[in-house]
């Protein structure tokens, strides 16, 4: 796989490709089938007005649909109900199985469909379209496996998730149970984990045999606990729904002849608004572009070998072959090379360049890797050190240094993994990446001021969670698209739907602080001589654009101009800059 990537890296000679792109094209598509119990029990609401298991499941499915559209719109998703009264499946050979959506990439219509199954109304819609009837899990599983085989596309990763609240679906019908187990056994290659819903669910009664064995025996017991809360359910579905894909498989070289195989993963990465695609006006079908090079004078097509690369410095053009330009970038073969270890406190908080990587052993490539890796992980963690490594991602990429920070496995109360075991690879800056700043010399706060600020901090403290903030830009983009896809005469009041958590809740903050803000301001102003613009502290929030009031004698100004040490924040538009400079020069020349 690493080689594939390396090949594609060099394919496009004009554009620097994103180094972190995982090549999905050759990997095939992921698929996910939601198999949802639609029996009467699923529609019973919880005691404290909790939504019904069915409702919760639909919310989950909805969030997977929308997140798939944002993060991996090529993946295929299906929604199948079992225990229904009505039957609907490709050949209508299975009873009490209702294929609501067959395997396909989700689009606006499907998102809306699932939305329609949520809440009280949703329950009614479900009852009208499918109803609740007999349960035959054998048929349901069989139907799902047919869905997979009906797909013409190449599938790389298949998952089936079962949502139910009944631990004995066949009410003790041993024969059916046995058949279902067998069928699940047949599916084991593809059917993966299972999700079940609340209320004294006893896995051992039936489902433990249906669930495929986890990828690894050690996982046993991890996800077997039923989960009852929507948030937990959503989290688990999210964690399981995506295939872990390594962006590279490399050797971690501890020293000559000691190569540990590892996979490099991306666990966090900025999701950007996708680029627009070009469509042919007549049929709205996408078009692709081809780039060709022509000779300006002769008009003839040029081969790559007809061109060279050039840069101009100090008035001189320097020309190189394309190959030379590539070769210059080569330092060493792809891999991770251990340089040594350092105490954790040597890792500076502000040494951050890009999102971190995640490193996990590849036992399948080099046997024994997992054991060394585990030993290293454990001792690094216990001794509070990180490993410093030289990292070459692909052929012809120049090296970067990574701090490999040990991360031991962490589980929550429900035995679900919160932190996976492995090393986080933090990119370290080179000398060129660090800028020298002149820090201003300013007075520091007194204890009284600091204490007052502490009260403010206390009042406004909250428990941060990294998944708590949705990207409003993306959400708005997709909300619009969804609306437009369903109704080209776009509704115009879309914005109201979006709850933007990045905007501070000013009223709430003001209320929380009460008089504290004023008290802090008073402390700041009574202790310092308040000649300079007190008003800037009484400004309304968002006064950033207001101009500071600065007074200065011309002599002082002149001196500062000469030293080039003037710095004030005033907004200047780019086009005016030149004029300003000229004016300044003219003025000072007098």
């Amino acid at each position: 796989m690493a080689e594939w990537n390396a090949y594609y890296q060099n394919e496009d000679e004009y554009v620097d490709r994103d180094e972190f792109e995982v090549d999905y094209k050759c990997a095939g598509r992921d698929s996910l089938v939601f198999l949802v119990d639609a029996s009467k029990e699923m529609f019973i609401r919880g005691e404290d007005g909790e939504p019904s298991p069915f409702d919760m499941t639909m919310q989950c499915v909805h969030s997977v649909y929308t997140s798939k559209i944002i993060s991996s719109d090529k993946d295929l998703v299906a929604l199948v109900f079992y225990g229904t009264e009505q039957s609907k499946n490709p050949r209508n050979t299975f009873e009490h199985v209702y294929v609501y959506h067959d395997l396909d990439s989700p689009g606006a219509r499907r998102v809306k469909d699932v939305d329609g199954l949520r809440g009280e109304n949703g329950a009614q819609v479900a009852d009208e379209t499918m109803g609740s009837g007999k349960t035959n899990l054998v048929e349901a599983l069989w139907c799902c496996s047919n869905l997979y085989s009906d797909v013409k596309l190449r599938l790389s990763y298949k998952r089936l998730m079962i949502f139910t609240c009944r631990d004995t679906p066949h009410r003790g019908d041993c024969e059916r149970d046995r058949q279902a187990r067998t069928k699940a056994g047949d599916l084991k290659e593809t059917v993966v984990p299972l999700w079940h819903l609340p209320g004294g669910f006893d896995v051992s009664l039936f489902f433990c045999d249906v669930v495929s064995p986890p990828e690894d025996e050690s996982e046993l017991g991890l996800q077997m606990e039923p989960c009852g809360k929507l948030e937990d359910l959503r989290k688990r579905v999210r964690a399981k729904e995506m295939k872990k894909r390594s962006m590279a498989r490399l050797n971690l070289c501890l020293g000559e002849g000691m190569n540990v195989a590892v996979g490099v993963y991306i666990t966090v990465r900025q999701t950007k608004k996708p680029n627009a695609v070009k469509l042919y006006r007549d049929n709205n079908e996408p078009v692709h572009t081809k780039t060709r090079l022509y000779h300006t004078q002769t008009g003839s097509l040029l081969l790559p070998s007809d061109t060279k690369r050039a840069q101009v410095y100090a008035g001189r053009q320097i020309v190189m072959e394309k190959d030379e330009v590539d070769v210059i970038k080569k330092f060493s073969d792809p891999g991770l090379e251990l340089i040594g270890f350092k105490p954790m406190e040597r890792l500076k908080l502000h040494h951050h360049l890009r999102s971190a990587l995640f490193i996990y052993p590849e036992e399948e490539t080099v046997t024994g890797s997992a054991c060394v890796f585990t030993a290293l992980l454990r001792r690094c963690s216990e001794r509070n050190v990180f490993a410093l490594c030289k990292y070459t991602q692909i052929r012809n990429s120049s090296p970067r240094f990574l701090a490999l920070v040990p991360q031991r496995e962490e589980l929550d109360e429900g035995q679900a993994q919160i932190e996976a075991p492995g090393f986080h690879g933090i990119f370290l800056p080179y000398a060129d990446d660090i800028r020298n700043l002149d820090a201003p010399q300013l007075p520091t706060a007194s204890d009284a001021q600091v204490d007052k600020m502490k009260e403010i901090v206390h009042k406004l403290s909250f428990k941060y969670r990294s998944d708590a903030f949705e990207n409003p830009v993306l959400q708005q983009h997709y909300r619009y698209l969804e609306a437009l896809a369903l109704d080209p005469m776009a509704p115009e009041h879309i914005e109201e739907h979006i709850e933007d958590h990045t905007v501070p809740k000013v009223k709430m903050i003001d209320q929380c602080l009460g008089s504290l803000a004023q008290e802090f301001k008073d402390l700041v102003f009574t202790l310092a001589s308040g000649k300079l613009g007190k008003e800037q502290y009484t400004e309304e929030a968002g006064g950033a654009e207001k101009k500071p009031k600065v007074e200065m004698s011309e002599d002082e100004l002149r001196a500062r101009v000469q030293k080039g040490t003037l710095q004030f924040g005033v907004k200047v538009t780019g086009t005016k800059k030149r004029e300003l400079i000229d004016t300044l020069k003219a003025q000072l020349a007098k």
Partner: protein
Amino acid sequence: MIDFPLCRRLGWHQCVATLMSKVEINMTALVLCLDVGFSMSNSATGQEPPFQQAKKVIQKFVQRQVFAENKDELGLVLFGSDNTKNNLAKDDQYQNISVHRHLMIPNFELLEEIQNDVQPGSQQADWLDALVVCMDLLQNETLGKKYERLNIVMLTDLNTPSSPDQLDIIIGNLKRAGITLQFFLPFPVDGGGSNPPHGGKALSREQQQGLEMTKKVMMSLDEEDGLEEVYTFSDAIEKLSVFKRVEKRPMAWPCTLTIGSSLSIKIVGYKAVCEERPRKSWSVVDAQTHQKDDIKRDVVYCLNDDEETEVQKDDTIQGYRYGSDIVPFSKVDQDQMKYKTDGKSFAVLGFTKQSMINRHQFVGTQVLKVFAPKDDEHAGVALSGLIRALDDLKMVAVVRYVYARNGNPQVGAAFPCIKEKYECLVYVQLPFMEDLRQYSFPSLENNKKYTPSEDQLSAVDSLIDSMMLVEEDGEKKDLFKVNHIPNPQYQRLFQCLHHRAVNPSVPLPPMDPWLTTALQRPLAVATRCQAPLETLKKKFPLKEVVKKKELKTSKELFGNSTEEPDAKKAKVDEEEDFNLADITEGSITQVGSVDPARDFRTLIRQKSLPFGEVCQQLTGRIEQLLGNKNMNYYIKCIPCIQTFREQSVQVGNADHYNSYIQSLKTSIPVRGLQEFWDMLVQDALTLINKDEVEGSTFSSHDAKQFLTAGEKKEEVVAAVVDDTGDVDDLLDMM
């Protein structure tokens, strides 16, 4: 005079102040003062003479200046030279000191001169005299211009007797003119004393005296840090960071930190850490003329049909994907749907424990340092209050950050940072929910198979011990500071650019040895860890798994049940294989563009179409591919031709293949497909001969000749015909 609106609104002073924060006036004038006297050529056996080392330092420095393309001016003064050329030379004063280059912006000519003309001399000159010549040069040539810094870089072995009587006057003059000094010596400034430095060679009396004087000069210029501006040659070669950094002045980002509506603090943010990209990129030029303008790039839009029908750009519109839907978009829609922000913002959403923020979840590509504006004491105190409160409580501010109006909002953490000399907030962007991939991985430590024994753990311990880069006791010296290494990519790039600029026709040089060394495990550590590594190897056997990759992937892909008998499975695999890329069609009815060779094979086997027709379909595809003139397309064509040949032999019909290959050959020069032809020759894809297929009219000798003979002829043809040719021509010929 000041008649534009902005200035009227702001007032003249502020206008100037604004300018000063924006305009970079940080020009430097610098004189390199190089000792070329004869003692510089002496060295202990096996060592590079100081002259060569010093020359390298200068080359690297000038190289860096040239590539930085700033307005800094540079002069070069040689002393100990055979000739004398300076303003002060009179009678026997200031002899053997030559101003090689006056103050000007450095360029490749200077680099060439240094490479070719700067050679060791046979004389000696007083380095103090040379210093005076440099000062004179700086003073005369900077008259009437504004410089932020005047600097003299002295490179010498201090091996000439100097008269210290003028020293105080010189120091006084340096101070008055605001000239700073840097010294580069073959030996460390503090390495003297009893143990002889510098390869066992003790310093001469002159050198000791010179060193004392150097110290005196440097200490009087800067009492505290003066000696830090004295370097050794080898330091300088390895760490360019010792040179005063040539860099962009950081851009200030003025904003207001807000907490609710009533508490606002003026702030200024600066990028503190950010991946420095090269300023220039490569442009594509014509290989012959080296002219950029001789090349035009043409982008065409094609439909996704097999013919790749070209459409006009005007006939295309924009759309976005929403899962399986593609939503066409007008400009109006686009503007309307864009998320709008009011303007820059640094608004506190709340505060949280530092431990809640995971370092490995930082996103974005930069780190900001946030200060209060200079001269704003109130903001300084207020911000200090916040920083100290956060620091005491081990908390951070979670803020909404918007760079400018309609910029995308970020959520980030502002960490308190308290240094000896300053306080600030350090801002890093945090992920949005959509940015997280919550993968779970199988447990390692709870897996018996992977649990290391005590023995193994202690082997790891000794490895860690032997490879600690920071010594635990004493000074805590760090042996490997990444943030002191210049980005090797640029070092190498500049080395090659420099080399090519000065020697255009010579192959690129190997990598500088210092650079290779700088990126490796420090020698001390490498030696120390040998034994522990050997133990580790013994304790942890590693074995590479040789596996049939294909088998694994097909299993992964198709998820075939292992219980199925092998024969059946094989059959399924085969079928699957044929269905794989068939995304659009259910079965193969014609030679498609995805995998023409495979389609061809299938069609031949199915016998549903006449052989000739299938051949024509295939050659049509080949021609289409060749029309792209791109190596990747050529690569795709080769298997087509291979299959074409193979199947023709199998079917026993060589006519179609032979006639196609012949017509292809004649069209090669016209269509500029030489590269592709070479590939055919390499793969020996020649005519089908009689021995292979009876009906063929060619002997095996003919067939062999066919490939080689062409090569000579083509050049002639190519010279005459200057036409791109057309696909249709060839097809007509067939």
